[in-house]
């Protein structure tokens, strides 16, 4: 009874699932969910063990495990909704999960919805592993679902996965295979009577035939995984999602926006899909902001506000003045008209701060904290008026009251000492001077703009965190520059936050600008007295355009000279006139990708892709399984009275799979002649065929009871010879899309299509009567 439950294999399957899920920790925050999926997996595998112990058929075990999984997950996640609200509660959780995976990059926060999905998917795959490895005793096949979990992780992290994850999974899989083989070998030495084909007993669906293929595939995969990356140059990262769902042509699809920014990643996205076209009244339009805020932890910005806590927006009605900004009569407003916007809602790129907006029919709202509008649906075209505050000597001259700016003053504890020391060194008297000093330092000669990060340095035996590494190696792109400025400002007591959006892009010469995905940008906003949230531009050179005008008057600030390049020193004038700068709109030159916004949400596509993969793999099993079942039913049909006849028909179907169609019903000898003429056979093959035919003939026609022989061995030998003669594609086709399986499907289809005819015939016959 205990043996029937197969506890050791079940335990191995559980361990394998856990190990395969391990890399998910790189995708998700926290660790509580890991325990949840381990426990749920253990529970469903336990159900399987218990059912096997009482001799339940394996298909029923599988079904009950799935039902059990659904019940457990329901109890865990929607315990209060076992009534009419059940469906809507589940739908809410699924929506939440999809929102989470859509809007966050790895590591994503584990929301209740995502947790429910995890508890469904991973234990679901555990059930598959259990069925294949334990019930069907084909551990080599179980590598496929395990690989699915693993692929989910590898395909969704932007960086290379630590090889230890793969090695661990490979080791567990090999242990499973070895354990399975060991069980088989131990069985040989026992005195227990057993059928000559034990696989048939343990393998009701007949997956055994595929096991050797799966084993070979697995070993090849492991070798390829080790060798191929070592010998090929690293290509740019292409996510699953990039090939599948994203609108690449301009205008057709929408452009998603990842509201995260990771300092540790190289930027390789060179996506030149257009985001929007706009026309501006300014000669040098400001960047278009999408969101601002966020929290920095562990080298990554997350938690940017979405469309929450909005005030209803009304077209063309004046919006509240952003906090901290003192309006003056000298303030001007400029307008920007957007056409062909493809940004996915709720995000909508606008300059900051918006004075009023017209989104046409699209319903929209306005966040007073970030001074950012959000739309419910994509506004194809819209117009905004935005403020250009007049310059004021008082601006940024006084420190602001830190109350209420806890988040915007928080320093990353790991890099804090280094940041504080540097901030002290850069100096500056007023907050404005300090800010300009920081900006000048970062735009200075020492720093290099690069989409590729320098290798992580090790100081005192410890690897530097991403921010410290940037401050040491002085190489990075907008995300690093903006983060450094934010942290340095915070160290000086200036509230600072991260803004994400787009550079104005390229003008076509008629004052129409086209913003591409590669124009995505990140910059800091500092809260200064009299100005409120103020944009700075620490990212040097051609990429980011000039520093904002209001920051230009403090060039004498200590620490790091002004950048000599033209764009950085543009418009030193403090005057409110926005004279055409000597610097052309800088981003035009570069095709390289821009800021941390380049990450597109691939999560949204990963799950469907994984589902398609699993279904495809299972689908590939369908025809072989059907063929197998057909053969078993043939053998069963003839088992009692004509076993050789059954074996012979099975042999014919296997030869048909190998591309030799069976002859019409001929006499055994005629069939022998047919096979000899349709495939080249060597001497052993010919004699095996001859013996099989002789045996068949004597069973069919000789006096019954004279012989009870089997042609199994001759059939195997003949199949071996024929198989080795056939081409590789034929052999693969024989395994994957066997003729026998196709015949079963065709017959089923035919009987389905005939059924209405038969019913009609019956009806008409009755009527005729």
């Amino acid at each position, binding site marked *: 009874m205990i043996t029937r439950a197969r506890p050791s294999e079940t335990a191995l399957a559980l361990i394998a699932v856990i190990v395969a899920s391990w890399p998910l920790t790189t995708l998700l925050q926290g660790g509580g969910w890991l325990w949840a999926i381990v426990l749920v997996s253990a529970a469903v595998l336990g159900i399987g063990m218990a059912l096997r112990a009482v001799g339940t058929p394996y298909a029923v075990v599988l079904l009950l495990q799935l039902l059990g999984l659904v019940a457990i997950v329901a109890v865990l996640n929607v315990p209060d909704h076992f009534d009419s609200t059940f469906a809507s509660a589940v739908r809410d959780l699924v929506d939440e999960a999809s929102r989470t995976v859509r809007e966050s990059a790895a590591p994503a926060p584990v929301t209740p919805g995502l947790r429910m999905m995890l508890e469904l998917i991973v234990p679901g795959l555990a059930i598959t592993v259990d069925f294949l490895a334990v019930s069907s005793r084909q551990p080599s096949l179980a590598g496929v679902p395990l690989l699915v979990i693993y692929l989910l992780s590898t395909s969704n992290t932007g960086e290379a996965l630590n090889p230890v994850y793969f090695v661990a999974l490979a080791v567990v899989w090999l242990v499973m295979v070895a354990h399975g083989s060991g069980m088989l070998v131990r069985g040989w030495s026992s005195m227990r009577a057993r059928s000559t084909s034990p696989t048939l007993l343990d393998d009701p669906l007949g997956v055994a035939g595929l096991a050797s293929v799966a084993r070979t595939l697995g070993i090849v995969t492991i070798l390829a995984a080790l060798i191929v990356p070592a010998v090929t140059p690293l290509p740019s990262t292409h996510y699953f999602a990039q090939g599948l769902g994203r609108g690449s042509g301009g205008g057709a699809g929408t452009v998603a926006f990842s509201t995260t920014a990771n300092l540790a990643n190289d930027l390789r996205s060179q996506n030149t899909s257009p985001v929007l076209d706009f026309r501006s009244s300014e000669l040098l339009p400001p960047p278009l902001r999408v969101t601002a805020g966020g929290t920095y932890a562990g080298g990554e910005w997350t938690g940017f506000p979405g469309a929450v806590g909005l005030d209803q927006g009304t077209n063309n009605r004046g919006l509240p003045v952003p906090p901290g900004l003192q309006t003056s009569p000298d303030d001007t407003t400029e307008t920007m008209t957007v056409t062909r916007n493809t940004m996915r809602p709720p995000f909508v790129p606008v300059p900051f701060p918006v004075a009023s907006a017209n989104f046409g029919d699209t319903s929209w709202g306005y966040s007073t904290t970030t001074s950012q509008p959000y739309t419910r649906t994509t506004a194809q075209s819209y117009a905004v008026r935005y403020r250009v505050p007049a310059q004021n000597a008082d601006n940024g001259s006084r420190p602001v009251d830190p109350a209420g700016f806890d988040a915007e003053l928080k320093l990353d504890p790991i890099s804090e000492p280094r940041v504080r020391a540097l901030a002290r060194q850069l100096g500056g008297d007023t907050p404005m001077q300090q800010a300009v000093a920081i900006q000048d330092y970062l735009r200075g000669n020492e720093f290099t703009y690069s989409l590729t990060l320098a290798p992580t340095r090790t100081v005192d035996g410890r690897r530097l965190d991403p921010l410290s590494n940037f401050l040491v190696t002085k190489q990075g792109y907008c995300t690093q520059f903006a983060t450094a400025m934010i942290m340095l400002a915070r160290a000086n007591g200036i509230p600072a936050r991260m803004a994400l959006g787009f550079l104005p892009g390229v003008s076509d010469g008629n004052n129409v600008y086209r913003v591409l995905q590669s124009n995505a940008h990140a910059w800091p906003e500092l809260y200064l007295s009299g100005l409120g949230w103020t944009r700075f531009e620490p990212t040097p050179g051609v990429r980011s355009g000039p520093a904002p005008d209001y920051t230009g008057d403090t060039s004498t600030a200590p620490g790091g000279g002004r950048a000599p390049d033209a764009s950085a020193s543009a418009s030193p004038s403090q005057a409110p006139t926005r004279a055409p700068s000597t610097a052309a709109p800088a981003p035009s030159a570069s095709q390289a990708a821009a800021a941390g916004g380049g990450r597109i949400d691939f999560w949204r596509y990963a799950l469907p892709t994984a589902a398609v993969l699993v279904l495809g793999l299972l689908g590939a099993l369908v025809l072989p399984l059907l063929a197998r079942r057909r053969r078993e039913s043939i053998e069963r*049909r*003839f088992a009692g*009275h*004509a076993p050789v*006849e059954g074996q*012979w*028909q099975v042999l014919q179907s296997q030869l048909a799979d190998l591309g030799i169609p069976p002859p*019409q*019903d*001929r*006499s*055994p*000898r*005629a069939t022998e002649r047919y096979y000899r003429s349709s495939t080249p056979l060597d001497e052993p093959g010919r004699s095996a065929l001859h013996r099989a035919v002789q045996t068949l*003939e*004597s*069973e*069919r*026609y*000789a*006096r*019954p009871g004279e012989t009870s022989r089997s042609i199994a061995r001759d059939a195997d030998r003949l199949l071996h010879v024929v198989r080795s003669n056939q081409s590789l594609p034929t052999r693969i086709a024989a395994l994957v899309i066997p003729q026998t399986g196709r015949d079963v499907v065709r017959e089923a289809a035919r009987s389905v299509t005939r059924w209405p005819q038969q019913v009609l015939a019956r009806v008409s016959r009755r009527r005729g009567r």
Partner: protein
Amino acid sequence: MSSSIDTGSAPASTPGAHAPTTSIQDVQRVASDIHRSVSAVIEGKQEVIRTAVVVLLAEGHLLIEDVPGVGKTMLAKALARSIDSPMRRIQFTPDLLPSDVTGVSVFNQDTRTFEFRPGAIFANVVVGDEINRASPKTQSALLECMEEGQVTVDGTTYRLHKPFLVMATQNPIEMEGTYPLPEAQRDRFMARISMGYPPPGAELEMLDVHGGGSPLDGMQPVTDGATVARMADRVSQVHASPALRQYIVDIVSATRGSSAFRLGASPRASLQLLRAARAFAALEGRDHVIPEDVQALIEPVLAHRVILSSDNQHLHRGAGAVLGEIVRRVPVPPASR
């Protein structure tokens, strides 16, 4: 001929008693001896001789349709000599009476009783030459004997010899003044063959070897009638599996369903086909019949029983070709499920 009167007690006529002692290998050996012995006389006619031996062992009768002079009688004589059995030849003529065939009761003055004078039919091998020249009455007398294996004259039944083989010949060319056997009568013959002219080489050799005298003179018997009768018993016990019997039925029914035939083969044809196939299998040393045995016998056993439809197309092809096509078309049933 008086020795032939005790016809009821043909040797080895008790089936079963000797059966166990006669193995299929014995049958095969004896049959091939006969075959070899006859082939020494009839050159280059292996198939014909084989069919004749099959018919002998299957206790059937043979219809030979051919022009004169190709060795029909020679075949019969050689066969009779080989099995060391009496052979009688009846030249059928329009004035031949049934009693000439069956025999007649004659009043014996000495014993003052009627005494049976057996006719020509009382022999192991009977050759009926040009059977289509006799009147239908005489023909049917012969055919009744063939079917019944006995003769009834004046209320007394006389059993015929065993083995009993009638080899009737027909000349298909000269039809003037003949009474061709109707279909129903032809059905009584197990097989019909035609000798055909010998191959040129064989004919030349025949002149060389047999130019001096009758080749039959030198022939030595290879077995005797009793053995042949035992062998026939053994042959009737050759196994025919259900699948094979199904095959025979399928083929015979196919002739009835075919549009090429105006008349298909009769159930008697099925029976005779099976018996012939058993003998054929035994000749191969097999104790069971396989489809190949049946296929080899389709044409000799069925061709004379079917009537081609008057459609020109079919008439041109001939019964043999149509039957061959039926053999190709009818599936060989696998073992029953």
